[in-house]
C-alpha cells in the first residue's frame, strides 16, 4: 500500500522539472550554513595577518574600525575603508574575490536596494542629474545613496574579517578575557554546539521528507508539516537541556564555570593595535579637514 504521505492526489501540484521543493531548499540552506561554519574554521586556521593576532586585540581593533567607519562621511575616505577591508582580507590569505562577493551579495546588495529610492528627488531634492519625472535622480541623492552603500559595505567587510579569521573558541576566550561573565561565555559556547546539532537534525528531517515525497505538496500541507516539525524541535530542545544538565551534574558541576582565559598579547599585537589607532585617527582627521561636509 502506498503510504499516505507519498500519495499524489489529483489536486496536488506536480513538481516542475528542475524546481526545488521547500524541503529541499531548506535542507540546502541548512547545509550551506553548516558548510559556512566549517569554511570559517578552515580560513581561521590559515597563517595570515589577522589570524596570527591575539583575538582580544583583533576584536578591539575591528570594533574601533567599525565605529570609525560610522563617523566617516566623505565618499573618498569611505572608499579607502572599503579598500582597506580587501587589503586586510588579502593579507590574511583570504580570496579577495570571495570576500568581495560575500560582502556585496549580502550587505552591499541590500544597501543598493534600500538606498536607491534615496537617490531620487522624492526623498532627496536637489539639482537633477538624470531626469525621470518625480523619480529623477539628483546629485545630493547620489551622494546620500553612495555614502550609505559604501558605509554598509565597509562595516560588513570589517565584520566579515572577524568571522573569517577567528575561531569561535578564540573569540570566546577573547570575550572572557575582556570581562564578559563566564556564565555568558559558557552559554555562548554551548549554544554554538547545540545550533550545529539541531541544524543537522533539521536538515535530516527535511531530506527524509524530500526522499519520501513524490509531489511538491500544497502550501497548506507543507505549512502543517513545518509547524509540526518546529514543535518537535522545541520539545527536543527542552529535553536536550534536561539531559545536558543531568550530564553536567553527573560530572560534578557545582555552578561555577571554568575560565577559558589563557591569552597573552605579544609586541606584535600591541603594535597592531597602535597602528590601528593611528590609522583611525588619520582617517577621521582627513575626513573632517580635507573633505568637510
Amino acid at each position, binding site marked *: 500500500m502506498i503510504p499516505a504521505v507519498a500519495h499524489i492526489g489529483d489536486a496536488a501540484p506536480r513538481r516542475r522539472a528542475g524546481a526545488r521543493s521547500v524541503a529541499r531548499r531548506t535542507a540546502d540552506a541548512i547545509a550551506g550554513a553548516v558548510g559556512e561554519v566549517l569554511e570559517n574554521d578552515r580560513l581561521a586556521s590559515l597563517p595570515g595577518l589577522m589570524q596570527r593576532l591575539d583575538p582580544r586585540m583583533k576584536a578591539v581593533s575591528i570594533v574601533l574600525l567599525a565605529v570609525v*567607519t*560610522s563617523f566617516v*562621511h566623505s565618499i573618498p575616505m569611505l572608499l579607502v575603508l572599503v579598500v582597506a577591508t580587501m587589503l586586510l582580507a588579502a593579507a590574511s590569505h583570504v580570496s579577495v574575490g570571495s570576500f568581495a562577493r560575500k560582502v556585496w551579495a549580502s550587505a552591499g546588495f541590500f544597501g543598493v536596494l534600500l538606498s536607491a529610492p534615496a537617490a531620487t528627488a522624492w526623498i532627496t531634492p536637489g539639482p537633477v542629474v538624470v531626469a525621470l519625472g518625480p523619480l529623477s535622480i539628483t546629485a545630493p541623492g547620489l551622494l546620500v545613496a553612495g555614502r550609505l552603500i559604501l558605509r554598509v559595505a565597509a562595516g560588513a567587510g570589517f565584520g566579515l574579517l572577524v568571522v573569517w579569521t577567528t575561531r569561535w573558541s578564540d573569540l570566546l576566550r577573547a570575550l572572557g578575557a575582556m570581562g564578559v561573565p563566564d556564565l555568558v561565555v559558557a552559554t555562548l559556547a554551548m*549554544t554554538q554546539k547545540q545550533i550545529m546539532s539541531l*541544524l543537522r537534525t533539521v536538515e535530516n528531517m527535511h531530506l527524509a521528507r524530500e526522499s519520501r515525497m513524490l509531489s511538491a505538496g500544497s502550501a497548506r500541507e507543507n505549512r502543517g508539516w*513545518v509547524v509540526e516539525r518546529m*514543535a518537535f524541535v522545541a520539545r527536543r530542545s527542552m529535553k536536550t537541556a534536561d539531559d545536558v544538565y543531568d550530564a553536567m551534574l553527573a560530572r560534578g558541576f557545582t555552578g561555577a564555570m571554568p575560565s577559558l582565559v589563557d591569552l597573552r598579547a605579544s609586541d606584535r599585537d600591541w603594535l597592531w593595535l597602535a597602528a590601528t589607532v593611528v590609522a583611525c585617527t588619520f582617517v577621521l582627521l582627513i575626513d573632517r579637514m580635507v573633505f568637510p561636509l
Partner: protein
Amino acid sequence: MHIPDGYLGPQTYAVLDAAIIPLWAVAGAKVKKTLKAKQVPLLALGAAFSFVIMMFNVPVVGGSTGHAVGATLIAILLGPWAAAIAVSIALVIQALVFGDGGITAIGANCLNMAIIMPFVGFYIYRLVSGDSPSTIRRSVAAGIGSYVGIVVAAIAAGIEFGIQPLIAHTASGHALYAPYPLSVAVPTMALEHLAFFGPIEAVITMGIIAVLAKQDSRLLQMKPAAKPLRWLWAGFGVLVLLTPIGVLAPGTAWGEWGAEQLRTTLGYVPAGLEKLGGAWTSAMPGYAPAFIRDPLVGYLVAAVVGSALVVGIAWLLGRVLARKEEPPATPPSGTT
C-alpha cells in the same frame, strides 16, 4: 529586521548599545533567580532553538516562503526574561559567526528582537489567554501576541531608521545615515510586517502552541513573570496619557492623505477615491469627538475610548474561546 552596520548613526547605536547592557544584567538576575544552575543548558538550547527556527522556510503563497523569528514562542516556553537572553545570544552568534546584523547595531537588534518582541508578545499572550487551560484560547492568544510583538518590534526598527535624517544630516539637510524620514520608514516597516511577516509569525506560533498543547502540555505551564499584568496596565496607562503628543506632529502620516491633501499635492483626486472617500463617516473623525473643542483633550478621549474598545473586544474574544473548550463537568463513566 537585522540592522547591518552603517544604517544607524553613532548617536543612535551608542545609546542603544548602552541601554541593552543594563537590560541584559536585569534579565540575567531574573533568570538566575528562577532557573538556578539549570540556566546554562536551558538558555543555550533556547538560543539554539531561536536560531534554528529562523532557518525553517515556511511556505506562504505562490511558491514563496518566509521565516518566523519565534521570540514570542520562546517567551511562552521559557518566560520573557529568559527569552530576552536566549534571543540575544542567537543574535550575537548570527552577527559574529554568520555576519548577519552589524557589530555596532547589536544593541538595536537585541532591543527590537530580544526585548520588545518577546515582552510585547508574551504579555499580550498572558492578557488574552489568562490562566485558561483551553488549547484554542492559548493558541489564539499566542498568535495575537506574536503578531503584535513582531509588528511593534518592526515599528521600533522603523523609528530607529526614521530618526536618522533628523539627528544626523549635512548643513543642507541631507541624511548621513538611513535616509528615509519617519513618515516613510515607520509605515514601510509596519506595513510589510502587518501584511506579510506578522501573519507568518502568528500562524507558526499558533500552530506550534497547538501541537505542544496536545503532545506535551507541561512545556506550556505559565512561567513566573513578576506581576506581569500590573506592569502591563501601568505601561498601557502611561502610553494612553502620552497620546496627545501625536497632535504636536505636523502633517499627515505617509499614505493616509485625504482628498483635499491629494488635490493640493497631485492637482487632482483619483475618481475612485473621490467616490468612496465619503462613503463612511466614523464616530470620531480625526481622532476627536465632535463635541470637544480642544484637540489635546479630544485626542486623549479618543485614545481612552479606542483602547477600551480593543481591550473589551480581546476580553470578550477570550471569554468566548474559553467557553468553547470547557472541560466536561463529570469524568466519563466506565473508567477505572
